[in-house]
């Protein structure tokens, strides 16, 4: 009976992941076989042309995405970690209101933020710049980060912080030497999601970085689809490469991912 369930589970997973398989399959398919009827179910006579095209044309986009992703992680942690510590352990008056605002902030549609940012960035002169994009992308992660970190830090034993206080550690010292190291797991979760959301962002990139010199990989794919919708192996090869961070995330940090989904459940 358990074997049967595993078999059913395998079939369900195969059905669910078929589009992903197809993306990989098409990325290896020769141009000549692209419009075959019926299509090749496996990349027989496979080609690496698509991946060659990625190397030739998409590397600058990938580099930009990497920079934007890392910048977003840094900005998110700098803003969110102290706030979470304050909300969880110092409990200022009005902390509840702030948590509420963050909860609501997650629900604002990205396209609306994009339009507001466009107006703001235009007057500030940071339209089409990488720092501008980092700031916009961080809005996807900051509310989530504060809420998840607050929940985690609330669980840290009060005795530990009191012991530090007795030993003469100030608030800043306690935060740096005790709270932050103990919150490593939650910080990793938050960083992974912040990176992934920045890496995947299309709304902000297509509105705030449309004419930029350094554009992220999502725009790289988008231009590809727009310009030459014949080279589908190259498009799908780029898509495969753009999916690598998500795949790595799932392989390396599976338990953090499941925790993150249930904890925050935020994605546009």
């Amino acid at each position, binding site marked *: 009976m*358990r074997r049967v*369930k*595993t078999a059913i*589970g395998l079939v369900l997973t195969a059905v*669910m*992941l078929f589009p*992903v398989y197809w*993306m990989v399959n098409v990325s290896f398919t020769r141009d000549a076989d692209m419009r*075959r*009827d*019926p*299509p090749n179910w496996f990349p027989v006579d496979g080609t690496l042309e698509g991946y060659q095209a990625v190397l030739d044309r998409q590397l600058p986009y990938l580099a930009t995405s990497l920079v934007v992703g890392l910048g977003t992680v840094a900005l998110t942690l700098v803003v969110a970690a*102290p706030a979470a510590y*304050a909300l*969880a352990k110092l*409990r*200022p008056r009005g902390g*509840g209101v702030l*948590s509420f605002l963050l*909860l609501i902030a997650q629900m*604002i*549609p*990205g*396209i609306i*933020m994009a*339009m*507001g940012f*466009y107006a703001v960035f235009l007057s500030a002169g940071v339209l089409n710049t990488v720092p501008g994009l980092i700031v*916009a992308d*961080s*809005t996807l992660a900051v509310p989530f980060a*504060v*809420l*998840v970190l607050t*929940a*985690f830090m*609330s*669980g840290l034993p009060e005795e530990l912080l009191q012991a530090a206080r007795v030993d003469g550690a100030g608030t*800043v010292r306690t935060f740096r030497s005790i709270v932050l190291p103990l919150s490593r797991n939650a910080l990793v979760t938050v960083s992974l999601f912040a990176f992934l959301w920045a890496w*995947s962002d*299309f*709304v902000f990139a297509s*509105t705030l970085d*449309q004419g930029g010199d350094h554009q992220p990989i*999502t725009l790289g*794919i988008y231009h590809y689809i727009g310009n030459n919708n014949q080279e589908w192996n190259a*498009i799908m090869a780029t898509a495969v490469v*753009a999916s690598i961070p*998500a*795949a790595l995330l799932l392989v390396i940090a599976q*338990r953090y991912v*499941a*925790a993150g*989904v*249930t*904890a*925050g*459940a935020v*994605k*546009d």
Partner: protein
Amino acid sequence: MALTTQARSRGRTGEPTPPRRAPRLRSGQWAAWAFLAPVGLYLLLFYAYPLYRNVELSLRDYTVRSFVRGDAPFAGFDNYLKVFADPTFGPALWHTVVFTVVSLAFQFTIGLALALFFVQNFPLSATLRALFLVPWLLPLIVSASTWSWLLNSESGVVNAALGALGLGPVNWLTSPDWSLWSVTIANIWIGVPFNLVVLYSGLQAIPAGVYEAAALDGANARQRFWRITFPLLRPVSAITLLLGLVYTLKVFDIIWIMTRGGPSGASTTFATWSYRLGFGNLVPSFGPGAAVGNLLIVAALVFGLVYVRTLHRRVP
């Protein structure tokens, strides 16, 4: 991991409720505010200010020139009236409702069925459940372009499969009758993992003892589902659906990449309409675009407040 167990017992991390409250020290207040200063400043600069500018955009009569110079005349609610009178308004509203309701219904039903299946532990169940997360983690542009090719009229594998079954080819993305369904299917695919994971954690929180007692009383599988699982899962279900609703209202990427809201507006929702007004044309109309966006925000906030209230009722 503490995060996991906490999230499990509550379904979602919302308002922090510390297990043991620290005494509120007066001297600590200043330190607390110092630690909160960055996020406060951040929210003002990067949330409040762009949103304020967005409202301002919707209340003025902007042209490209006055957008740059910032001297557009105040127009009151003209942009909103223009939007309401626009022939796109009715269809966009209808498409948004259909897209949201159909997506939610299928995502939730499929997610619940899968959660019920995976909660019976069997060999490999944890690994397969993790693999189910892949669609949710992929960048939306990747999912959307993959679906575009799957659903391609001439060379897509979906039409090839339909052809093998003797069914005629469907113009999934290029026919006004089908484009809304195509983007809805892709969106359901992306949303199932989220529903699966959250409902799975909800199922796990139901104590096994309840089922054992019911089995002793002779309840069959169907009774166990409708009398125990369904009522006990209701709070988690409510939160899943409400969050799903708020997030589906926001969906823009998938539709824009797959169909650009077309053909001839057949898959235009408020989100894509707002984008098209603001960024999709050669001559942008920021005012009406911002007005559409603000209507969307009002809808999202209404459901968001319902969500927050549900959350608070669950965590007293």
